[in-house]
């Protein structure tokens, strides 16, 4: 079998699209811009599919494709090489597939935006970096992609940069990510120092024979925790999750693609990619699991109280990412990747549907001003309903299979414990509750919105321009088709996990450790079914509770909120974490910079040195210029005095001898 897959096409195609749209888009028509944007991302998806079809007949997995060498310094080398195994194949398909659908959706959603071409250039650029990240064969190339998606995310969050909140949300995302990247970089340095290479294959080959660091912490634990710090930044985990809810300032397709389906899962991918290291560092694994579990619960509770439809979804994303890390932390990497994939489907769908809702009601994002929309926008309602069922974990939708897999692994794995499981189940209940709350507040009851007078940024195709926007109206087909496809995937996407097929597919990557578990699995099938039953039960309980509170007795939530008092206030204000960070980190930093660096160092030391040097030169010159009076006799006097000195010196020399 020929083994040239031309993998390089997959990242380079979107890059070409970004370049064409970025440089020429300003003068092109919208049709041309969308054609370029769609063709190049679509071609990347098509090529990824063709690669997937030929994947089974590859004679060597992981398949590596070498292009050029990049850094050669002594024995240390880093090359531009692409790396394809089962794990990167799944990521490849998710990124290009969901990415392509969201490109299509954006054509409709962004049509009326004056910077239409810029949006598609950024979106394609994001695809390029994300695919570089996924296909890298070493940590450094992965880091390029890692930073690149951060850049694209910054550009797209701040897409409407004339809005102050959007500009600062972009900055916040970028800066918070820097903190995580700092950890990631140090982890990379440690790997270079101890293993002399960054290639996945070579590093892992050296890690493989090392024993697990069961007692105390060692090198692998340090590397693992540092990598996890990086993952915390990119994947919005405690304590660095604060940027993601703010990132909702970006256009909704961006929230769907970058801040739900793909970029934020980069941390999960990176941890899974480094599973060889983590498996030998139980303490690092424990850190991953604890952070993931806490984030899942913490973000879910905030999600209950939010009223902005995108903010609910943002906290939900943080919470679901927590699930993925919980899975990685208990050593069930394939379960984490499984959830990553299904989450990409249903969360991408939720965001796109939310965008469709926002578009329908003319830019309003507050759910209290929606309601009763299911008769106005039935297709959006149907797809969003499917996604909600999926995320809530109701069988047979996608989220059920992956979430259940994670919960089961959290309970049964060697690294797992019933504590993780319990918190996971509680979170599942809360997830189900707030998602159905969102659904009921938006689609049931009466429409609370004013008649829509003006359109927000999310506008639609030309066909609509004539009629008044008095009533909520369905989005154009170009937006609905991606919704339907994602809805289909949210229904059937989980079926690949039946009978552990997904896990078996990933076995060549995560391999060891699963075999022993599989043996024990048969015996505990009963337990597994019981746990599955419990998680379905809590999901249904969440649904019913949401129904009671928001449909049948809509006056209750306010009462409950009142009775909880200050606790409710705290949750509503996201536990004051932003305020805490502002006090703890931002204010000291700003004050320190102002008082010490600006007023102290810059003004007092640097400016004053320069100014005093100039002043001193002038003062000395003021004195010295009297010597050049223009008076000949004073010159002669100086000459005479000088020669007298010389003569006196020579006489003294002569006498001394």
């Amino acid at each position: 079998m020929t083994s040239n897959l031309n993998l390089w096409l997959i990242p380079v195609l979107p890059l070409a699209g970004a370049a064409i749209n970025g440089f020429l888009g300003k003068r092109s028509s919208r049709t041309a811009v969308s054609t370029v944007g769609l063709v190049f991302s679509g071609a990347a998806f098509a090529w990824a599919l063709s690669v997937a079809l030929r994947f089974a007949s590859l004679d060597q997995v992981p398949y590596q494709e070498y292009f050029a060498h990049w850094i050669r310094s002594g024995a240390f080398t880093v090359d531009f090489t692409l790396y394809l195994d089962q794990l990167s194949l799944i990521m490849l398909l998710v990124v290009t597939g969901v990415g392509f659908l969201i490109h299509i959706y954006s054509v409709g959603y962004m049509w009326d935006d004056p910077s239409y071409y810029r949006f598609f250039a950024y979106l394609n650029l994001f695809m390029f970096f994300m695919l570089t990240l996924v296909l890298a064969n070493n940590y450094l190339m992965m880091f390029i992609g890692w930073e690149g998606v951060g850049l694209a995310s910054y550009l797209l969050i701040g897409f409407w940069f004339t809005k102050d909140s959007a500009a600062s949300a972009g900055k916040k995302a970028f800066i918070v990510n820097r903190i995580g990247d700092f950890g990631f970089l140090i982890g990379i340095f440690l790997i270079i120092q101890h293993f002399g290479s960054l290639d996945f294959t070579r590093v892992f080959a050296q890690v493989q024979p090392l024993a697990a660091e069961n007692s105390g912490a060692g090198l692998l634990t340090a590397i693992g925790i540092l990598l996890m710090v990086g993952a915390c930044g990119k994947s919005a985990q405690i304590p660095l999750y604060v940027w993601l809810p703010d990132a909702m300032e970006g256009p909704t397709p961006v929230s769907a693609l970058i801040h739900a389906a793909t970029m934020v899962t980069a941390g999960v991918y990176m941890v899974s990619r480094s599973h060889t290291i983590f498996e030998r560092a139980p303490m690092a694994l424990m850190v991953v699991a604890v952070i993931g579990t806490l984030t899942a619960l913490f973000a879910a509770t905030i999600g209950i109280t939010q009223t902005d439809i995108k903010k609910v979804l943002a906290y939900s994303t943080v919470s679901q990412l927590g699930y993925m890390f919980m899975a990685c932390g208990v050593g069930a990497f394939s379960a984490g990747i499984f959830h990553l994939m299904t989450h990409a489907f249903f969360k991408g769908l939720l965001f796109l549907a939310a965008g469709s809702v926002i578009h329908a009601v003319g830019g309003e994002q507050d759910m209290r001003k929606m309601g009763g929309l299911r008769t106005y926008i039935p297709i959006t309602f149907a797809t969003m309903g499917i996604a909600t069922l999926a995320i809530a974990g109701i069988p047979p939708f996608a989220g059920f299979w992956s979430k259940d897999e994670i919960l089961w692994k959290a309970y049964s794995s060697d690294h797992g414990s019933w504590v993780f499981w319990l918190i996971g189940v509680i979170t599942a209940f809360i997830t189900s509750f707030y998602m159905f709350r969102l659904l009921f507040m938006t689609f049931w009851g009466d429409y609370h919105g004013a008649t829509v007078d003006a359109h927000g940024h999310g506008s639609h195709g030309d066909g609509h321009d004539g009629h008044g926007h008095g009533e909520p109206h369905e989005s154009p087909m170009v937006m609905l088709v991606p919704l339907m496809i994602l809805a289909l995937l949210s229904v059937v996407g989980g079926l690949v996990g039946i009978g552990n097929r997904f896990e078996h597919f990933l076995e060549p990557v995560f391999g060891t450790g699963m075999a022993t578990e599989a043996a024990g699995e048969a015996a505990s099938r009963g337990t597994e079914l019981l746990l599955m039953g419990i998680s379905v039960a809590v999901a249904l309980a969440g649904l019913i509770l949401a129904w009671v509170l928001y449909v049948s007795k809509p006056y209750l939530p306010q009462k409950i909120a009142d009775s909880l008092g200050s606790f409710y206030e705290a949750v509503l204000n996201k536990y004051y974490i932003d305020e805490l960070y502002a006090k703890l980190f931002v204010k000291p930093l700003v004050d320190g910079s102002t008082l010490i660096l600006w007023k102290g160092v810059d003004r007092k030391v640097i400016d004053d040195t320069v100014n005093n040097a100039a002043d001193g030169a002038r003062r000395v010159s003021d004195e010295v210029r009297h010597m050049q009076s223009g008076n000949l006799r004073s010159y002669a006097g100086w000459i005479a005095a000088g020669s007298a000195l010389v003569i006196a010196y020579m006489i003294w020399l002569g006498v001394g001898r």
Partner: protein
Amino acid sequence: MVPLSYYLVLSGFLFACGVTGFLIKRNIITIFMSIELMLNGVNLSFVAFAAHWHALAGQVFVFFVMVVAAAEAAVGLAIIIAVYRTRETLNVDQVNLLKL
């Protein structure tokens, strides 16, 4: 025979007189004469050394100095006359247009 040092002392004395006159006098003609005095002080030491070492170079040098001094006197006096005609003074302190 008069010892060389006598000549040198006289030469130094003449030169010092010239310098002093140059520095303290206001009248431009006196200053001019002081310059001549300095030149001649130097000339004296030239011929003294020439006689002492029986070397002609010193005497030849003196001729050059005298030629230059004569030329200088011609040009200098012409300038002095021009200055006096325009400014009606010979006091150097009042010829100060270019001063700071």
